[in-house]
């Protein structure tokens, strides 16, 4: 049954998968192109190199987030189009069906992750770095895989949720923003939104995987 679900998701998401495969492969290589050639006789360009690596590295968590959003929404799209008739007709419990969908989505997610890994290794092989500078293709790929998984799981859960849950979530976000507005109106320095975001993106916050260092080339 997993194969059928996977095939169905591939059919509905193949364009997105291909686009993300190309982007994920190209981004690490962009570091090399943007940073220019670097070899033992061209040490003066190390600063430029590190700069470009860092700047381009900032794109990678963005791609992970986008990947999660597109795939998280995409895996439920066939059910929403068919008003869940197909899934209700299947002789499987709800939890198993959701796991099948998630598993199939994760398999498809592996393609852009593998493409980023391949692009990173190719970029690392294409340059000669001076002593003390290193390429981190494996670490970057692993981090990207985890970040994509977290984003995918988040959007997957949201897309599968009822309208009530969506309303609760939106209400929560609105409440935080409102609290911020009220506090600032009364002259308070407390920044609720900033604190919530900081808590989410700072370890042990669940989204801390999206922040931190993402540079392919570093000290």
């Amino acid at each position, binding site marked *: 049954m997993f194969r059928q679900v996977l095939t169905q998701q591939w059919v509905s998401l193949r364009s997105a998968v291909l686009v993300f495969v190309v982007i994920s492969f190209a981004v690490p290589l962009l570091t090399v192109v943007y940073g220019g050639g670097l070899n033992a006789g061209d040490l003066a360009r190390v600063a430029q190199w*590190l700069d470009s690596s860092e700047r381009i590295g900032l794109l990678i968590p963005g791609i992970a987030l986008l990947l999660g959003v597109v795939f998280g929404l995409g895996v439920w799209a066939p059910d929403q189009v068919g008003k869940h008739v197909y899934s209700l007709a299947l002789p499987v419990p709800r939890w198993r069906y959701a796991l099948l969908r998630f598993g199939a989505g994760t398999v498809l997610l592996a393609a852009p992750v593998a493409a980023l890994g391949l692009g990173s290794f190719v970029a690392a092989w294409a340059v000669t770095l001076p002593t003390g*500078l290193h390429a981190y293709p494996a670490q970057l790929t692993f981090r990207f895989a*985890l970040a994509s998984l*977290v984003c995918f799981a988040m959007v997957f859960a949201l897309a599968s*949720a009822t309208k009530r849950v969506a309303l609760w979530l939106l209400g929560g976000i609105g409440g935080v923003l409102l609290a911020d507005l009220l506090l600032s109106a009364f002259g308070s320095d407390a920044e609720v939104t900033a604190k919530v975001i900081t808590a989410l993106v700072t*370890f042990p916050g669940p989204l801390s995987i999206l922040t931190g260092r993402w*540079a392919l080339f570093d000290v």
Partner: protein
Amino acid sequence: MCSRWRALFAAALLVTPTALRGQGGAEERSRLRALLARADSLWALRVAEDSVTARGQRTARRAQLFPSGDVALALWGAVSSSEGDSMARAASAQLSEFGLVPGAFTRGVVVIQVNAADTAALRRNPAMGRRQPLLLDWVPGDPRGVEKVVYEITRAYARSLDSAASVWLPPGAGEPWSMDRGGERALRWLTESQTSAGSLCLAGDPAGCRRALGLEDAKNPLAARYTAGDIRHMLQEQRYGSARLQACFAGDDGSCLRFAEESRYAGLSPIPASEAVRTSVLRYVRATRGVDAVGRVFAGAPALMGARFARATGQGLDSLVLGWRAWVLSRGRPGRVRTPVGEALAALTFSGVLILLATRRTRWQ
């Protein structure tokens, strides 16, 4: 009503110019006039001495004292007390935050604004009289007042040290520093260095870093820290100067060094690393070993700079310079791309919880 009475009174005085009661005769009036003229003259002199005219405005410059923490400033009278206090407080905080200049040294100086008048009275103050005066070239309205105060105190401190430390310590080291500005300048120097020592340092050679940073023996700084190739590269614009320089460019390495030594380094610094780079070394010590370590670098018995750093940080010089190099190259960031186990577990746990929620909550229910 009041003004009408005043007008009537003035008219009465004019109509009957009789001497008022209490006034003496003509002689007495003459003496009083002379006294008043003398007082006016003295006042005008005092005003001229205590003030300067700039852009048509007269500014009082009689020195007034602003002590705060270890810092004491003597600024013009035109400086408001709040501005003077805040300058002294900020300078004191800045010096303590970095920890380079010992509090005992700062307590031994008073920073006097240039052209401040009547500083003799200030010197008679028993607390201030013993302090060494430092001149502050600053005018009210210049936003760099605090920076200049810190600069003057740091420069005086550098002068008070032994010759090796005095040459090495940049006077601007105590100024506010950030990785974005100061660190970037150090990074640029390291990666675009014109000296072979700097290039070796970038390539990860600790001996190159030690030479570039001027941490080794400084008996003959040029020969120790520059190669003839470096000198040729850096003196390219002067290549048609003296005969010795022409010999240098013709390939005689000895002439290059001799030219540089004879012409007082010919514009070459005895230490290849710029002031910004040396400041970054101190900032690295502060970031990794704390404020006290920065103070320890220049405290204690005179020694070579390398020995001073090793003594203050308790680590080998090679390890220190390589650590500094990595710190500058990484712009002070904590580390390279990596995913600690805790972060990976947090991500996986969060994903697991979300999947669990996705299997429970449904549109079907």
